[in-house]
Each structure stands twice: as structure tokens, then as C-alpha cells.
């Protein structure tokens, strides 16, 4: 596209996580510039403020899990989902369900045993809350049969699990595996076994979708190239070690930047996640999530799929 003339200024909200790698790839490799976008990265410590910043117009695009707060902003007509990013995929490690040693010793061996147990989450209305709901549903008991403990931070959840103050939690694989290996906790199941799950989505302000659809389209094209690069290298890291190392170098500029590369590289590699090709959105699952959130009073009752999702920016195919 005609990039040269006057690149359009766009602000993208980012978190320093490997799951945001496509943003960094598209930025570093000039895919945004190719689309005539003059992107400025704005860094945040949590996903929710990104959504608020998009709502207030300080940022144009962001990536987030679907949460109660996000649904609320969508209901106010401030933000809309335009694509899917991370999802649970049968062929890849997604989030694992961990139980504490104490619970393990008491005989908790599977997700079905979690009835009557405590389950750590960051906050009510977060994706962890939803995962707890999926676990309960799939194993035939009510969400109320688990004691949900909000602990705000992943670090706090892990601390509580390790010290046996909560029985279970769900967490990304590159944290779950080492904990299991070190004997600090036990993996008793995987979230991917519960069925398809669209974990994070790409979103923008409602105003952008109506007033600047062309810009949104260009952004999505560039972003999809970033995803493609990531998938090509990180989902099979042994195929081309040189490319993998180059990718790690790129990501290390943004993630674990304060650690020496040799310390950071294993974490980056282990943190590889499954990203949807072409930023395709699993609309059916989004609808399922919305229904669940509404049912539990965590999303506004009046929010419809039309208001939440703008499907016009989906790629025609892979």
C-alpha cells in the first residue's frame, strides 16, 4: 500500500509478555510501516488499563482476554473485538490446571476432584474466573461448589498455591511445567481438554471501526504478518535454530529486557503459545463466553454480539 506519503499515527497498547510478540515483530520488521502506519508502542502493566485507554482514545489497538471489565466497556459502546489471537489448541500446550501438594496428598488427582476445593484467580470477572466456570461445567458441578479466592496477581496465586493456602489454579504452561517438575505443585489436567477456547482477542475503539475501517484493515494485515512470522518459527523451534535465535533476539528487546539474554532466552522459548493464524476469531466461543459472563452477572445483560464483535476485519481465509 502507499506507505511513503503521510504515515498515519497509531498508538498500540502492549504488555511485556511473549504472547504479545506479534506486536513487536510487526513493529520491528516494518510491517506496520509497510501499511502506512506510524505505530507508537505504549506499554502497560495490565490488560484492563489498555482497554480503558482505548476507550478514552489514548490508544488505538490492544490485545486482551475477554473479561467483565472489557464487556462493560463494550456495552458502553467504547471498544469492539476485531480479531482473535491466542487460543487453546488441541495440538499445543495451553493453560494447565495445577493443584497444591497439600491437595494432591488429600487425593485430588483430576479436575473432577476440584468440587469443594478452593481455586485461585486474579480477580472476579477475569479469564481465570471463566476457566473455573468451564472446569465446573465440564465436570458436572456448580461454580459455587468451588471456593474462589481472588489474589490480584499471578505471583500471589503461585505463592498461595505453593504454600498450600489454595488448592488449585490454572496457569500458562511455561509457569506450570517448572512448578510441576520442581515438585512444588502437580498438573492434573489441561484447559484445552475442555474444548475450544478463544483466550485473547484483538480490539480497537468502536469509533475506529466506524470512522476509520480502512485503517483498522491495514493494521490487521500487518498484525497477521507478525503472527505468521511467530507461528512459523516459535511453534516448531527446532526446525530452524538460527531463525529461532533471531526471533528470540527480537523479542528480548521487549520481554525480560533487564535480564541477560542467556537468562531470558529459555523463558522466551518456553513461553511460546498458540496464536490463531490470520488473527481469525472463534466467534462461536466468544458468544459462549459472553453468555457465561452474563449468566453469572459479570457482564451487562444488554450486551449483544453485534455490539461486542465487528466481524468485518476477519481475514478471508488462512
Amino acid at each position, binding site marked *: 500500500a502507499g506507505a511513503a506519503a503521510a504515515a498515519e499515527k497509531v498508538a498500540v497498547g502492549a504488555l511485556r509478555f511473549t504472547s504479545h510478540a506479534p506486536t513487536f515483530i510487526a513493529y520491528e520488521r516494518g510491517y506496520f510501516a509497510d501499511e502506512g502506519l506510524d505505530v507508537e508502542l505504549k506499554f502497560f502493566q495490565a490488560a484492563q488499563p489498555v482497554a*480503558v485507554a482505548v476507550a478514552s482514545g489514548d490508544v488505538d489497538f490492544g490485545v486482551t482476554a475477554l473479561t467483565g471489565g472489557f464487556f462493560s*466497556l463494550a456495552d458502553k459502546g467504547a471498544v469492539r473485538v476485531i480479531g482473535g489471537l491466542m487460543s487453546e489448541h488441541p495440538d499445543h500446550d495451553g493453560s494447565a490446571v495445577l493443584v497444591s501438594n497439600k491437595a494432591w496428598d488429600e487425593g485430588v488427582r483430576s479436575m473432577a476432584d476440584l468440587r469443594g476445593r478452593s481455586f485461585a484467580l486474579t480477580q*472476579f470477572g477475569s479469564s481465570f474466573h471463566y476457566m473455573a466456570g468451564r472446569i465446573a461445567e465440564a465436570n458436572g458441578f456448580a461454580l459455587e461448589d468451588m471456593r474462589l479466592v*481472588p*489474589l490480584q496477581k499471578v*505471583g500471589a496465586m503461585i505463592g*498461595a498455591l505453593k504454600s498450600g493456602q489454595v488448592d488449585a489454579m490454572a496457569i500458562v504452561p511455561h509457569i506450570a511445567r517448572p512448578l510441576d517438575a520442581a515438585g512444588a505443585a502437580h498438573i492434573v489436567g489441561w484447559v484445552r481438554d475442555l474444548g475450544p477456547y478463544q483466550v485473547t482477542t484483538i480490539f480497537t475503539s468502536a469509533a475506529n471501526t466506524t470512522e476509520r475501517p480502512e485503517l483498522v484493515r491495514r493494521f490487521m494485515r500487518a498484525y497477521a504478518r507478525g503472527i505468521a512470522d511467530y507461528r512459523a518459527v516459535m511453534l516448531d523451534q527446532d526446525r530452524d535454530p538460527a531463525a529461532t535465535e533471531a526471533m528470540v533476539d527480537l523479542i528480548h528487546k521487549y520481554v525480560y529486557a533487564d535480564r541477560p539474554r542467556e537468562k531470558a532466552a529459555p523463558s522466551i522459548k518456553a513461553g511460546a503459545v498458540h496464536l490463531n493464524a490470520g488473527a481469525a476469531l472463534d466467534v462461536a466461543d466468544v458468544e459462549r463466553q459472553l453468555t457465561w459472563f452474563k449468566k453469572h452477572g459479570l457482564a451487562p445483560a444488554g450486551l449483544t454480539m453485534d455490539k461486542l464483535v465487528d466481524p468485518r476485519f476477519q481475514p478471508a481465509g488462512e
Partner: protein
Amino acid sequence: MSEPACAHAREGARPVPYRGGGFAPRPRRWAGAAFLAGLIAFWEMCSRLGWISPLALPAPSEALAALRDLAQSGLLAKHLGASLGRLAQGWTLGVLAGIAAGLAAGLFSLARAGIVPLVAALFPIPKIALLPLFIIWFGIGEESKVATILFGTFFPMTIAVYGGVDNVDRTLIRMGQSFGLSRLSIIRKIVLPGAMPAILSGMRISASIAIILLVAAEMIGAEYGVGAYILLAGNLMATDQLIAGVMILSAMGLTVSWLLGMAERRLLRWRA
């Protein structure tokens, strides 16, 4: 005063200009309440006229509606009860410990050498940053919540108290010594009352900090509590409930300030 003044005016006499007075603000109860009420009315007006977008700040009436819902659901009492219990415990312990540490730092060279840098080093540590560690140290029960508030109030209290002790008139202390009062008596009867203005000022500050820290304290596994209510409202971006929760905290702050104002009037009556 006016009559004789007039009588003498024709002789070129005029009253001596009054230069005294002032510098003694009197409490004006109603003015304060009226001011706050006016402010809220103004805010409501701005919201109604659309000068404040609902995204930026809900109207006070919406927040009050959320508050009414909460009260009717019966949860308000539960939230309040849980939070007030934590506040009372954490703040009382923090204030008492702060007075003890502040007195020690104000009286003994060695205690000062230890306490002042320790306070300077530990006070600036944000409680929220340490939440993961707090869970391991104090668990996820009431202890961790009380501890959060305790640590938050202990440090400012210590600083205020030792500042106040430093400011106690040394000739009064010498007087106490000259009458052979025991060290303890001097501390109880001369140092403490002399530092009382600073202690009360420190209590004002630490009470507000304790209320602020409710939110941080109730981040960890709290089912009920005003802080937990606010956090949930924030997560769900329910700004009306958020503001309703904040209003509860403000009301707590006003109540504490009013109680401390009464205590000040009683305890500091000796001041001109």
C-alpha cells in the same frame, strides 16, 4: 465602643486602630457540610448537563442508586462490618506501635539511630508490590489484611510522633527532672501531652492511609469488605458502583476526621 468614640470625634480624637485578632480560625460546622453538599450538587449538575461524560465520571445520583441497591441487598452491612473490623484492628495496633517507636526514637539516641533509617527504608515500600510475599508470610486470612493496614499506619505515625517529641519544650523536661520525677513520669506527664498535637495530626494522616489501604488489604482473598467491593466494581468497569464504594470510604474518612476533631478540642483545650 461606638458611643464614646462619637462623643470625642469632634475633638479630633479617633479610636486606636485595632491590630490584633485573626490567626485563630474558629470551626464552622455548617460551612463545611454546606460546602461538601454544594460540591456534590455541582457535580450532579455537570453530569446532567453533559459537561462530564458518563465514561469519565458517573453522576452522584447514579452512585447513590448503586449504594441503595447495595444497602437493599443487605451486603452493605456485611462489607462495612468486615472493613471496619480490619480498620479498627490494624489502625489501633499501628498507632500504638507507632507511638511507642516514635517515643523511643524521640528519646534515645540509639533507638533513633536504628528506627529513623529503618522507617526511611521500609516506609516507601509499596504494600501492593509485596502482596505475593505477604500471602506467604501472613496467609490469605484476616492476618494479612490487618498486617497490611498495620504496616501502612505504623510508619507515618512513628515519624509524626518523634517529630512531636523533638518539639517538646526542653525546659519543661528539666523542670520535671528537678522535681525528681521518674523517667516514666516525665514521659507520661510531660513528653506525651507536649507531643499530643503532633500525635493527633499523625493520627489524622494515618487514619486516612489506613482507609486507603483497605483496598490493598482486601485484594487478597477477601469475600466481603468495601475494598473488595471497589475492586470488583473496578474489574467489571462498573463506575457507578466504583464511585459508590469510594463514597463509603470518604464517609469513613469524614467520620474519623470528625471524631479526631472532637478529641482535639478536648485534649488541646489548653492551647489558646
